[in-house]
């Protein structure tokens, strides 16, 4: 019974992607041999040096579309008890497809490897931590790379195995790529959110906050109290009966922090609160809090944002 792991590798900026090194480390914790799948000889030559890798599989010299990659994986799946990739676009598209082609299960965004068959991942947007046992022949899974350290890129001595090419899937054709354009206006997906509460005191002040948001490339949100008062439109409301957001940075200006509002932003990576009331509940969830006049902070941040913009 084969118990090997396969990592679908990624190449970035002329080197094995840091994400791939972390996936290699993650699957290494299963305690079974690790192979890496690569799509160019340059990448294969780099992969043989990674510590912990036993074999490097070299497929065609082009990165395939997800459907073709899934077909590749289907061909070789029976050699592996686990096929893993980072929780990024390519893996999330190809791995579940390959799982279905081979009659296997798929898991996303694994954060911990407990045993060769047991893994940890989040449910309900991370509010529950679940331990999962895999019982199928080959588990296909994406890995949350930020939960693992990278394997060492040197010290390994893997062998290269060339794979037979397969017919590509031609019904999907890449037409165009567009670089990330973060104008931030989309509240639900913005990485930076600037939100205002009752403390803004007027629609005009909320508009000033909107200018800060624009200058920061952030989306503008509001608490129910601010929406209720007519300072902001209903579409900007964050919280229960409004939108749930999980940006990298959430800046709460003049928001007291009612439970209904917290429910909508508690999963933000960093929460900053500015409020003149030191007892405001928002400070109990904020990573950084400023007790003071929000208009001072607003003006200072705006000046910094514009200076940063001008300098670019």
């Amino acid at each position: 019974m084969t118990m090997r792991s396969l990592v679908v590798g990624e190449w970035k900026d002329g080197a094995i992607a840091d994400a791939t090194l972390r996936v290699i480390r993650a699957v290494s914790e299963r305690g079974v041999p690790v192979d890496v799948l690569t799509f160019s000889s340059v990448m294969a030559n780099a992969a043989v040096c990674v510590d912990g890798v036993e074999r490097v599989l070299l497929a065609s010299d082009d990165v395939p579309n997800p459907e073709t990659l899934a077909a590749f994986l289907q061909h070789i799946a029976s050699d592996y008890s686990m096929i893993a990739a980072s929780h990024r676009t390519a893996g999330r598209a190809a791995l579940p497809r390959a799982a279905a082609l081979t009659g296997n299960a798929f898991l996303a965004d694994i954060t911990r490897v407990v045993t060769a068959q047991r893994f940890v991942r989040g449910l309900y947007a991370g509010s529950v931590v679940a331990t999962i046992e895999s019982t199928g022949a080959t588990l296909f899974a994406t890995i949350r790379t930020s939960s693992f350290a990278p394997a060492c890129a040197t010290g390994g001595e893997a062998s290269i195995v060339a794979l037979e090419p397969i017919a590509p899937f031609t019904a999907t054709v890449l037409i165009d790529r567009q670089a990330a354009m973060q104008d931030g206006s989309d509240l639900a997906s913005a990485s930076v959110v600037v939100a205002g509460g009752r403390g803004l005191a007027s629609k005009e002040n909320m508009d000033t906050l909107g200018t800060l948001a624009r200058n920061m490339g952030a989306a503008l949100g509001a608490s129910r109290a601010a929406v209720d008062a007519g300072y902001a439109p209903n579409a900007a409301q964050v919280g229960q009966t409004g939108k749930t957001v999980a940006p990298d940075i959430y800046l709460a200006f003049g928001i007291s922090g009612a439970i209904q509002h917290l429910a909508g932003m508690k999963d933000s990576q960093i929460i900053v609160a500015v409020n003149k009331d030191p007892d405001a509940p928002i400070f109990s969830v904020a990573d950084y809090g400023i007790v003071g006049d929000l208009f001072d902070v607003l003006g200072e941040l705006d000046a910094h944002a514009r200076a940063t913009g001008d300098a670019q």
Partner: protein
Amino acid sequence: MTMKILVPVKRVVDANVRVRIGSAGGVDTAGLKMSLNPFDECAVEQALRLREAGVASSVTVLTCGRPVCQDVLRTALAMGADNAVLIDTANASPDSLGIARLLHAFITADTDTDTDAYGLVLCGKQAIDDDIGGVAAMLAALLGWPQALNASAMEAAARGWLVTCGDDAGTATWRLDGPAVVSADLRLAEPRRVTLPSIVKAKQKPLRTVDASTFNVPLGTQIRIVDMAEPPVRQPGIKVADTTALLGAIGSGRLFQNVGA
């Protein structure tokens, strides 16, 4: 030539509800507010827009679960879907592959040469309860169709679809030839409000139930939850004196990560 659109949807714990782990070690959803999965709602909306543009002749919504799941089908009908199907899974708890197999069997059985075939399966990119996001790609595999995941824009093309998808570096536009499976991001389409007249109209629309057993598909699971726990508590933060201190603590690079983008 027009075709039908199938929108598989899921009934999930409402996004605003705080789930708790009960004394039995699992999440008991009885009594919790349940809703149409938000990403699926966007898929329904996009499907309706394609029908309104004349690209499709009808929109069918489908869910796999128990009869209580009919409420989300009714919501979709009230948004404007033409008909709804409940595949009753009885006591089974299929995993993503099981669901994909059911959908595949339904599509295969429902393809009728006298009427339009399904030219598009449009679903949400992930369910907000398990956050796996596997069904769309799995169904595409079983159908042998092209797939496009995390779509933020789409339109009909000469022989299929043009879909713009969010990816790691920004977005990419793909051409899919022939019938396809597309999964929706929230950006794809802002769902329309259910209106009072549409609630009344929805009661007249067909909603049928089909036993999962009629499809002869294995409904087991190859992944088993063995433990559930609360996540670590968010650590209390610190107070900083002013904006300068804040910039020092977070770093202006991170705070202004989107400036000039």
